[in-house]
């Protein structure tokens, strides 16, 4: 969608391919659901599907934050650590102040996450850091901070107020709150990415940073903003994660960054930036969660999870590269 080309024809091809790529994720989703359901019928029951949706919600929220970073051609490796850090800080706040209204928790999470994200943003936009170096450093810095502030101890379920745990357990208008959170995040990002200038500017910076500057886009501002958003979403994810699993520990969400990045890439967002749609990310997160859930349902060891994620990630980038190769060939043929 994002590529604006001088060739009218090429734009059509581009949009068509992107649509196919996006909805193409449905094929593995259906295929996988079919295979697992054959082996264990429990997989397709309403109960299990609700489980998958609940699990996918947190991943979706964090992945959407990650997506805006990847759209600019960057990467944020620190989301897993930010998630653990905000979860731990807020859990410790609630442990000390039992009567704090639980509705404040998501706001605190977003604020704390934004601070972490802003540090990344300053490093990348003002410090001219390569995103991978900046966020690899902060990934370990934030993780280390979790260990230090917690002293390696857990905040257990009984130390958290009921209201905080209920945050992800109540139904509003018949919809589980976790899904509502994800829905709100999805709709607002969808609106801003596709229908506001700021969203289009994010795509433009990722597509071609130099020309983005020439048309008057404040590149530094956009770069700062995307890391801020990514941090904020990771922070919100941290609260929901802590509330859902009713415990905060220093090694929580280890490797979550890989899940988030995988969901984004599987959803068809190009790692070099500038193209990809948010609905794809939603489907990517769903596919990833479904597969992990399927492994559990089929009683396959959870140790397979990490390797499988790596494989899916690699497959997604390879498929994208093959599509790009074919498109280029088609391009050349048309221009002749």
């Amino acid at each position, binding site marked *: 969608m994002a590529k604006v080309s001088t060739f009218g024809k090429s734009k059509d091809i581009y949009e068509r391919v992107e649509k196919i790529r996006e909805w193409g994720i449905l094929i593995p989703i259906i295929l996988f659901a079919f295979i697992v359901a054959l082996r264990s019928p429990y997989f397709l029951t309403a109960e299990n599907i609700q489980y998958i949706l609940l699990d996918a919600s947190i991943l979706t929220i964090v992945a959407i934050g990650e997506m805006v970073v990847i759209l600019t051609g960057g990467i944020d490796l620190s989301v897993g650590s930010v998630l653990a850090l905000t979860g731990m800080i807020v859990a410790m706040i609630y442990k000390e102040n039992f009567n704090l209204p639980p509705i404040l928790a998501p706001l605190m999470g977003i604020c704390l996450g934004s601070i972490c994200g802003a540090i990344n943003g300053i490093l990348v936009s003002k410090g001219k850091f390569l995103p991978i*170096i900046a966020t690899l450093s902060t990934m370990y810095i934030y993780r*280390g901070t979790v260990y230090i502030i917690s002293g390696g101890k857990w905040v257990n379920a009984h130390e958290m107020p009921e209201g905080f745990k209920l945050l992800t357990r109540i139904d509003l208008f018949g919809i589980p709150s976790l899904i509502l959170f994800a829905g709100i995040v999805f709709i607002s990002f969808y609106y801003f990415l596709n229908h506001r200038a700021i969203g289009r500017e994010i795509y433009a910076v990722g597509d071609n940073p130099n020309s983005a500057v020439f048309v008057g886009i404040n590149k530094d501002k956009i770069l700062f903003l995307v890391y801020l958003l990514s941090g904020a979403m990771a922070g919100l994810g941290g609260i929901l994660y802590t509330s859902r699993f009713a415990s905060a520990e220093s090694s929580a969400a280890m490797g979550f960054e890989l899940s988030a990045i995988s969901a984004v890439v599987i959803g068809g967002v190009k790692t070099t930036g500038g193209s990809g749609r948010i609905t794809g990310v939603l489907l990517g997160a769903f596919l990833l969660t479904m597969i992990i859930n399927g492994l559990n349902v089929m009683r396959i060891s959870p140790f*397979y999870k990490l390797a499988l*994620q790596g494989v899916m*990630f690699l497959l997604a*980038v390879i498929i994208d590269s093959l599509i790009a190769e074919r498109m280029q060939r088609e391009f050349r043929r048309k221009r002749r």
Partner: protein
Amino acid sequence: MKHRFKFSWEILLLILIILVCIISSFISPYFLDIVNLLDTTTNFMEKGIIALSMSYIIISGNIDISVASNMGMTSAFMGIFYRMGINIWFSALFALLIATLGGFFNGFLVTRFKLPSIAVTLGTYGLYRGIAYILLKDTAVGIDNESFLYLGQGYIGNTPIPFSLVLFIILAITFGLILHKTIFGRYIYAMGNNEQTCRFSGIPVDRIKRILFTLSGLMSGLGAIMLSSRLSSIRPDIGVGLELEVIATVVLGGVSILGGTGNMIGVVLALFLVGLATYSMNLVNIPSQVITIIMGLLLITTVLLTQIFQYRERRA
């Protein structure tokens, strides 16, 4: 101008090393003991071995963040073979082969599908560590073969010089000579400066990339063997986070993260600087999590410093 900058960077590292030594000897009287100092080098030799190939990769304008995961995979395979009753040396050899294949796989994906190395190695970062977990689950394998433990714990003859230090020095000299004295080394620099130009001037860019990533795999494997031998046990989470330390060391050594500049002497100096600083922090009982934070801060400060240097150089 450029030459003077590089010169001063290494001098700076040397001054920092001396500074660390002076401060540490004030903190703890045990620091400036030659036997202790030599002994402590064993703690970062595997890091150094991987840093050698990592500097090639970064100078060529790429990055490999799968090295620590590759180490995990290698160790896990070695542990599994050993548990099956295969001789430890054969297990190590097979594992080394697998590590090399792992590196080649990175290189293959990068060149065949024209993918950025960050994307590929991020994928294999998960995949290789995942394989380690699949193989070993949450168990550990103990190694009790004396001759194998010599690799990571042994000394040369009756001297206090550790075997791993000697191995590292030999490797470092080889890597340095190849980088600075051969055409292949010049190609690596050229690729880091401008890959497109290299392609047009007939340099086999793709083949060199495959070689570099394969080499990185081989070195990760070697590092894994040294580390397993030093710890005398193998766990699936062996060396987690080592990629950060290795990249930080290389960048601290004056290699630009954008590729094209840097040299081996700087990397080796940086390795010893970081190693000695970590050692002195251990002496005063700073927990490893804090040391990780300091490593992260160090990486950020170094990159910031080089950028300020380069900025001033451009203005001058």
